[in-house]
C-alpha cells in the first residue's frame, strides 16, 4: 500500500478484555516500531522489530503487552486483560532500512478506549 495501515481505527474494550491491534507496514520496510501515545503526551516507545526479530521490547509496560511480526511484514500488538490505563492511541511506524535514522513512516494509529 501507499502508507502504513493500522486497524481497527478505533477500539472500545471492557476492562479485562483482550485486544489485538494490527499494523501493515509499507511493503519492503525492514524496521517496524510500536508507540503508545496517551492523551496530551508524545509517543512513547514500546517495541522494535527488524524483519521478524523483536530486537527491543524494553518499552512494553507490562507482561500483558505482547507484539509479534512472524513473517517480517504485518505486526500485531496484543494487550491482555486490558486496564483503563491502557487507553491511548497506539501508533505503528516503519522504515525502509535497518538504520532507523531513515525517515519513520507512521500510521494513523488505533485509538483504544478501555471502559
Amino acid at each position, binding site marked *: 500500500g501507499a502508507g502504513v495501515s493500522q486497524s481497527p481505527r478505533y477500539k472500545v474494550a471492557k476492562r479485562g478484555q483482550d485486544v489485538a491491534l494490527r499494523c501493515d507496514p509499507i511493503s519492503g520496510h525492514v524496521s517496524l516500531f510500536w508507540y503508545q501515545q496517551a492523551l496530551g503526551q*508524545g509517543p512513547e516507545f514500546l517495541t*522494535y522489530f527488524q524483519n521478524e526479530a523483536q530486537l527491543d521490547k524494553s518499552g512494553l509496560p507490562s507482561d500483558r503487552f505482547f507484539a509479534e511480526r512472524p513473517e517480517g511484514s504485518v505486526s500485531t500488538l496484543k494487550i491482555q486483560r486490558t486496564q483503563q490505563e491502557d487507553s491511548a492511541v497506539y501508533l505503528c511506524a516503519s522504515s525502509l532500512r535497518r538504520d532507523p*535514522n531513515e525517515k519513520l513512516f507512521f500510521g*494513523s494509529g488505533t485509538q483504544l478506549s478501555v471502559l
Partner: protein
Amino acid sequence: AQSVSQHNHHVILSEAASLELGCNYSYGGTVNLFWYVQYPGQHLQLLLKYFSGDPLVKGIKGFEAEFIKSKFSFNLRKPSVQWSDTAEYFCAVNSKYNFNKFYFGSGTKLNVKP
C-alpha cells in the same frame, strides 16, 4: 534515560508572524534530533532532522531548526507562518548508539489564525 521537553504546549499566531518552538533534551551522549509534525486528521510525518555537521538544518515548507549543543536545544523556527501550518509539532531525539528508541516531547499545538 533520555527525555525531551517542549515548554510551549499551545501557541496561537496570526498569519505572517514568526514562529519559534522550543525543544530541550537531556542526554549526556551524542544524539540525533528530529521534528515531526501532525496536521489535523493526518499521521505524524518528518519535518526535519539533524545528525551532524551544520547545526542549522532546513526542512520542508520553510521550516528550520538550530542545534545548540551547549544548551541541549533544538528549536524549530519559521520566519512567516501560514494558516496551513496549523498542526501539532513534536520534537524527538535518539541516541547514536541505541538509535532504535526515539524519545518524543509532549508536543506543541500551533494554531495559526487567518
